[in-house]
């Protein structure tokens, strides 16, 4: 494995990794669902509530100023980590789902009947349903980029789908179920050439690679805090300032207004216009800490390490008789969806759990992908940079034992 990347040192940053499940050592391979938190994030949560918990953006008192500063510093840090120089373009939300719903509602208000929205065959339900709801509301048309058996998108079909009717393309950067990394830069360029805007679902990206939003040139980008080693209940929506200014507010309430009278209310400036009510203050600050943590790591070395781990795990899994891996894109992250002939994913997952191995089984909120492969679901092992080859070996041993019991 990589000499520059010391996984055993990294593991010490994540206290949960030494937990046991019953009497078995935990092997956590459900990082696609949520990632574990480093000590620096855990400490930040305690520090916030024990030293400077106060409501932000309104108090004249000391604590409120400290909390406001920390919250806005977190926004600026997250912006810079994503390659965004203007912090007003970084909105705090509840998570990827909330970010996408914000765009579907608010940007959606600018759309009219017959406008087309393009998504792909490998979207998470949260990047399907908000658009279906928008189409119902506005009479827009939803189009779906098809996928090949390998789990790669049919990019040529996408190119043909684009027209002056296309107003928005909403695609995932990385498939949570298949691991496929989509060629988003090219897809964004093509969309822009017909005047369409692009939303990138980056829920599975930042934890695996550096993401430079400005280089990508997407119009919106959504991510979840808890998948990038931060807290649950907080996420980010990046949006180009010009677009965010054109869009009406998503929710009304405190903090998002400039003046309120019963006759007319005027709205606050960015980013506050889209942040009604008291936000998840601790969440935002601690998500900043998570980004600070990621910043200390060498993402290049991590990507190399993770691809070695992926290759190793794929090879070992294929030693098991009847193994079928779903998602064989040339360009993929450390996610492996699989089934073993003659066994049900639920049975395998239940037995793995009893041996301390945490994987996910089911449709992974991507039922259209499961329908595409005509399967009820898969077993999914999704790795983070703190996982090891030894843990992969533990999973293989557990799988062999489970298969022996089930077949």
């Amino acid at each position, binding site marked *: 494995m990589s000499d520059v990347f010391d996984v055993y040192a990294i593991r010490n940053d994540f206290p949960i990794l030494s937990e046991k499940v*019953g009497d078995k050592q935990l092997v956590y391979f459900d990082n696609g669902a949520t990632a574990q938190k480093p000590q620096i994030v855990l400490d930040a949560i305690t520090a916030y509530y024990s030293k400077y918990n106060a409501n932000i953006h309104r108090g004249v008192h000391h604590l409120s100023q400290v909390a406001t500063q920390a919250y806005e510093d977190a926004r600026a840090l997250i912006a810079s980590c994503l390659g965004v120089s203007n912090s007003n373009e970084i909105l705090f939300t509840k998570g990827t789902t909330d970010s996408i719903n914000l765009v579907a509602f608010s940007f959606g208000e600018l759309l009219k009947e017959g406008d087309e929205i393009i998504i792909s065959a490998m979207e998470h339900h949260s990047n399907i349903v908000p658009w279906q709801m928008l189409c119902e509301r506005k009479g827009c048309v939803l189009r779906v980029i098809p996928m090949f058996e390998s789990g790669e998108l049919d990019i040529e079909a996408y190119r043909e789908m684009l027209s002056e009717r296309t107003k928005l393309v909403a695609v995932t950067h990385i498939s949570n179920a298949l691991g496929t990394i989509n060629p988003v830069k090219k897809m964004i360029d093509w969309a822009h050439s017909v005047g369409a805007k692009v939303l990138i679902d980056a829920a599975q990206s930042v934890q695996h690679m550096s993401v430079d939003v400005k280089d990508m040139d997407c119009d919106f980008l959504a991510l979840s805090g808890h998948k990038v080693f931060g807290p649950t209940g907080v996420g980010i929506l990046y949006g180009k300032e010009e677009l965010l200014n054109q869009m009406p507010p998503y929710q009304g309430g405190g903090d998002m207004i400039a003046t309120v009278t019963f006759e007319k209310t005027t709205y606050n400036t960015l980013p506050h216009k889209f942040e009604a009510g008291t936000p998840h203050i601790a969440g935002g600050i601690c998500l900043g800490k998570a980004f600070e943590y990621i910043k200390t790591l060498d993402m290049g070395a991590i990507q190399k390490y993770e691809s070695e781990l992926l290759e190793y795990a794929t090879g070992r899994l294929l030693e098991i008789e009847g193994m079928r891996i779903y998602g064989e894109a040339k360009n993929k992250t450390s996610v492996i969806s699989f089934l073993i002939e003659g066994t*049900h*994913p*639920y*049975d395998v997952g*239940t*037995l793995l759990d*009893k*041996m301390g191995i945490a994987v996910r*089984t*089911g449709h992974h909120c991507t039922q259209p992908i499961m329908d595409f492969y005509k399967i*009820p*679901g898969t077993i999914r092992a999704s790795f983070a940079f703190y996982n090891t080859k030894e843990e992969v070996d533990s999973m293989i041993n557990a799988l062999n*034992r489970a298969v022996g*019991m*089930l077949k």
Partner: protein
Amino acid sequence: MKTIKEIEEEIVDEFSVYDDWMDKYEYIIELGKELPLIDEKYKTDDRLIKGCQSRVWLHAEKEGGEMVFTADSDAIITKGIIGLLIRVLSHQSPEDIARADLGFIKEIGLQEHLSPTRANGLVSMIKQLKMAAIAEVSGK
């Protein structure tokens, strides 16, 4: 004819010899093979239990004063678990089924399957079995 309580005690007794989880599941898998299988013609969508990651079909019939249950699933562990429920509740009166508290599930350590997040739908299975019994009781 044994009562529901007696069968529950019998099962608790059988499981008491296993202190390792894998042995317990080995036994549940064995029990799945004894499940009174549903007639293929009843494997219809309306007999599919909602809320299960695996598919479970359940059929209820009344024979004399007793409820008789048959079922099937595409997952073996699920088959074993519904097999246990059917062993306890089949050939009992609808009134007794409606009243059964099924405490044996906790006693044999399967309570984690009762949590609402658990995808095997044990809660839904119990609900379906009881609904069938309650429908008979209220139909009288």
